[in-house]
C-alpha cells in the first residue's frame, strides 16, 4: 500500500547527477578552448567504459541495471576522474582508472551509496602511485594538439611539450633550493594567478560549483570551509616564509583546488552529512591538501587528503550529531 506522503518534490538522483554534469560543462568548454579537443576523446572513452563496467558488474551482481545506469552517477565519476587526470594521459590509463573507480571503489563496495571512498579519488591515487610520470605531464596552452593526440594514443615522440603543474613545479624548485619569487611568472607554466590556462578552468569550476550551490545540490559550507582553510593556511605560510611557500592565490586558483572544493569533497556518499561535521571534513581536507602539497612526495595532495578524510568521515559524523528537537533545551 502506498502511504503518506503522497506528494514528492520533483527530484531524482538522475536530476542531481545531471546538474553535476551540467556544472562541469563550463570547465570542459574552457579546457577545449585552451588545450584542444583531446579532453573530449577522454570523456567519451571514460563515459562509455564507465557505463559498460557498471552495467557488467550490476549484471554479475544480479542488480537492476537500467535504473542504476540511468541515474548518471557512473558518468559523474567518469568525468571527474578524467578532469582530475592530465588530459593527455594514454587512453589505457584512463580505462584502467575507470575500472578501478567503478569496478573496485564503487561496485565492489556495493554500488551507489555504499562506497566509503570517493571512487574517482581512489582511481587517481592508484594511478599516481603506479604511473607518476604519466600523471605529472600536463599539457600547456602551447602544447600542439598533434602531440596531445599522440600522447593520448600512447606514442608521444617529444617528452618536453608537457609539464608539471604549477604547484608541482614550485615544490620541486623549492626542494632544490630555489626561491619562489625567482620562479613566479618566469616559467610558461604560470599564468596570471596560478597555472597558465588552468587558472581559468578553475574559475569555471567555481562558477559551476556556485550553480550547484544555488540549486541546493551541494551545501555551500563544504567549498567555503575548504577554500577558507586553504586560503588562511597558505596566507600565513606565505607571510612567514615567502621564499618557501607559494602565495595564497596560487593555491586557491590551482586547477585541483577548485575541482576538489566544488566537485570532489562535495561527494555526499563518502563525505559527512552532519552540518558541523561538514565544516570539520572540509577544513580537515584543506589542511591535508596544504600539508601534502608542501611536504609530501606527490605532485598534488587532493586525492590523498580526500581519501584520508573519507576514512575519518564516520567518526566525524558520530562526533557531530546535531542536537535533536527538545534535547537539553536551556
Amino acid at each position: 500500500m502506498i502511504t503518506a506522503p503522497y506528494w514528492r518534490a520533483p527530484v531524482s538522483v538522475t536530476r542531481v547527477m545531471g546538474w553535476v554534469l551540467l556544472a562541469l560543462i563550463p570547465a570542459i568548454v574552457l579546457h577545449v578552448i585552451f588545450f584542444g579537443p583531446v579532453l573530449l576523446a577522454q570523456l567519451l572513452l571514460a563515459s562509455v567504459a564507465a557505463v559498460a563496467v557498471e552495467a557488467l558488474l550490476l549484471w554479475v551482481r544480479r542488480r537492476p541495471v537500467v535504473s542504476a545506469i540511468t541515474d548518471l552517477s557512473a558518468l559523474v565519476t567518469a568525468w571527474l576522474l578524467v578532469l582530475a587526470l592530465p588530459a593527455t594521459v594514454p587512453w589505457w590509463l584512463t580505462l584502467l582508472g575507470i575500472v578501478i573507480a567503478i569496478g573496485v571503489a564503487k561496485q565492489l563496495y556495493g554500488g551507489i551509496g555504499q562506497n566509503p571512498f570517493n571512487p574517482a579519488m581512489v582511481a587517481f591515487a592508484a594511478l599516481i602511485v603506479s604511473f607518476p610520470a604519466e600523471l605529472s605531464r600536463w599539457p600547456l596552452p602551447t602544447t600542439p594538439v598533434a602531440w596531445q593526440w599522440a600522447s593520448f594514443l600512447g606514442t608521444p615522440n617529444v617528452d618536453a611539450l608537457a609539464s608539471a603543474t604549477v604547484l608541482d613545479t614550485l615544490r620541486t624548485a623549492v626542494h632544490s633550493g630555489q626561491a619562489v619569487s625567482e620562479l613566479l611568472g618566469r616559467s610558461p607554466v604560470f599564468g596570471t594567478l596560478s597555472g597558465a590556462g588552468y587558472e581559468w578552468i578553475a574559475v569555471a569550476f567555481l562558477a559551476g560549483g556556485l550553480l550547484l550551490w544555488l540549486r541546493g545540490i551541494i551545501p555551500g559550507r563544504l567549498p567555503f570551509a575548504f577554500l577558507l582553510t586553504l586560503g588562511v593556511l597558505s596566507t600565513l605560510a606565505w607571510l612567514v616564509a615567502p621564499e618557501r611557500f607559494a602565495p595564497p592565490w596560487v593555491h586557491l586558483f590551482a586547477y585541483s583546488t577548485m575541482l576538489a572544493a566544488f566537485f570532489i569533497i562535495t561527494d555526499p556518499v563518502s563525505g559527512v552529512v552532519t552540518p558541523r561535521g561538514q565544516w570539520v571534513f572540509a577544513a580537515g581536507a584543506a589542511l591535508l591538501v596544504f600539508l601534502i602539497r608542501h611536504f609530501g612526495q606527490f605532485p598534488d595532495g587532493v586525492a590523498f587528503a580526500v581519501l584520508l578524510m573519507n576514512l575519518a568521515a564516520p567518526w566525524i559524523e558520530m562526533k557531530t550529531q546535531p542536537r535533536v528537537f527538545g534535547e537539553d533545551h536551556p
Partner: protein
Amino acid sequence: MRWFSWLTSSAANTLVDPVSGRKLYPIDGGIAFADYHKQETADIPIRNVAMPSHYIVPLRVNPRFTARPIVDIGARVRKGEKIGESEGKFGVAVHAPTSGVIRDLGQYPMTHVSGLPALAYFIEPDGKDEAIEPTPYRGACDDTDRIRDFLQQMGLAGLGGAAFPSHAKVASSPVKTLIINGAECEPWITCDDRLMREHASEIVAGACDLAAAIHAQEILIGIEDNKPQAIAAMQAAAANHGTVTVVAIPTIYPAGGEKQLIERLTGIEVPYGHLSAEFGVLVFNVGTARAVHRALTYGEPLLERVVTLTGAADNPGNRWVRIGHPIAELIPEMAPKPEVDRYLLGGPMTGFAIPDLDAPILKGSNCIIAASPALFPPPPPEQPCIRCGACAPVCPARLEPMELYWFARAQQFGKAQEFHLFDCIECGCCAYVCPAHIPLVDYYRYAKSEIWEREREKSKAQQSKARFEFRNYRLEREKAEKAARAAAKAAETKRRLEAQAQESHAEATASGTNDRDGAASPSAPDANDAAARKKALVEAALARARAKRAAEATEPSGENRE
C-alpha cells in the same frame, strides 16, 4: 564553540511578525510548497450537507478509550442525546447526531489507516432532527474541575486531527500561555481557514473561555500568513480582548504541528514524551475553541465539524458534517471526477488512503481529497540512498533521516532509537525531498511498530510470568485456606466433642455410668489439629511472600505506553 553553532544554525536570524509585532522564534526544517492547492476551496463559504441514510457513530473515541453504550438497540434518540458514557482520564461522551432510531450496536469499519472495525451505533434518522433540551454550563468561568467534567460530558475532542480529549488538556492546567492553532499548514486543507473567516468571534470567545478555565494569562492565535482574510477576521474579532494576540507566522510546512507552533511562538521545544503543559503552554485547534464556546454557552455537544472536500472534483468546498456521517455518502457532495482512484483522509503529507468508504467522519476528520493519478502520481521506484543529505535540513526535529532509514532497514532498532527515532513526528518532509524516492516515513513507522511489538512481547512475557506466579499463589492460598478451614473444622469438632464429652461426663456422673471411650476419643484430632494449624500458618506466610513477589513482577508491565 558557541559562535560555531551560531554560525551553523538558523538561530541567528530573528523574525518579527509584522501583524502583531511579536518576536517569532526560528523553527527547523520544513518545506515551502510551490502550490498549496488551497485556492480550490478557500473562497467558497461552508455549506451544509444532505442528511445521510444512516449514521455510524463510533464509541471508540480515541485509541485509548471506547465509550460504554448506554442506549439499547431499537430505542429512539434525539439530537444531542448522550448514547455513550465517558469514563476515566481519556473518556469522552458520545452523542446522537440527529433524532432517529438505534438500529444496531456492533463493529463497523473505521476511518483509520488500518481500516479495522470498531464498536459503533448504527442510527437511522427519522428526518425530524429533533434535539434535546440543551443544558449550558452554569458554573464559574474559572472552575477548572467543573469545566473539565462539562467538556468531557459534551464530547469535546481536538478537531485538529488527533481527536485528543479536550478535557484531559484542561485538567493539566494551570498554564501561562494558551495557543490557538489556526496555522493549517498542510496543503489542500482549508476547513480552519473557512471557520476563522466565518466564525471568528466564536473562536475568540472559546479561546477566552478556555483561557479562563485554565487560568492562562495570554492567548496567542497562530495563523500562517498565507491566510490574510482569516488573519483579518480574527484580528477584528480579537480587537476588544486585550489578552488575545493574533500572530501571523511564516508559511512553511509543518509550522502548524503542535510542537512547531509552540516553538515558533514561544521558543520552547517540548521534548518527546513530555506534555506542553509541563512548559506552561496548551494548544487548542481553532475548531475546538469554537466547539468549546458552543458547548459552554449553548449547551451544544460536539456533533459536527467542518470538512474540506477537495481534489479532483467539480464541486469542492467546505461542508458542515456531523460526526458519524458515512464517507461514501459525503463523497457525491463534491462531484468527484471520473479519474479519481482513491480518497485521502487528511492532507497529502500525513493523510492516508481511506481503506473503507463505509467508515464515518470522525471528530478528527478534517479533509477528504479525491485523489487521481494526475494529482498524486504513483511514487517512482525506490533507489539506494546516495547520502545526498537533502533529508536532514528539512527535518523539523533535527534528526538525520538517512541514518534512521539505514538502521530501520538493517533492523538495528536499538541504534535507531539511539538516533532518536521516536522524536520523529512523521511529517514526511524527508521523504518529500528524497531524490532516491525512498519512502522514508514507512521505514520509521515500521521500526516504531517493531519496537512497540517487541515491548508488548516483553510486557506480555512479564504479564504471563506474573499470571503464572499469581496462579501459584492462588493455588497455595487455596491450599492454605483449605488447611486453615480443615484446622478450624477440626477445632470445631474438638470443641463439640469436648462439649459432648463434658455433657456425657456430666450425664455419666449424673447417671453414674463411666464412659471412658467418650473422653479418650477427642485426643487424636487434637494432636492432628496443632500440626495442621502450624502448617496453615507457614503456608499463609509463604503465600504472602509469593503474592508480594508476584505483585512486584506485575508492576512494570502495568506502566502503559502513553
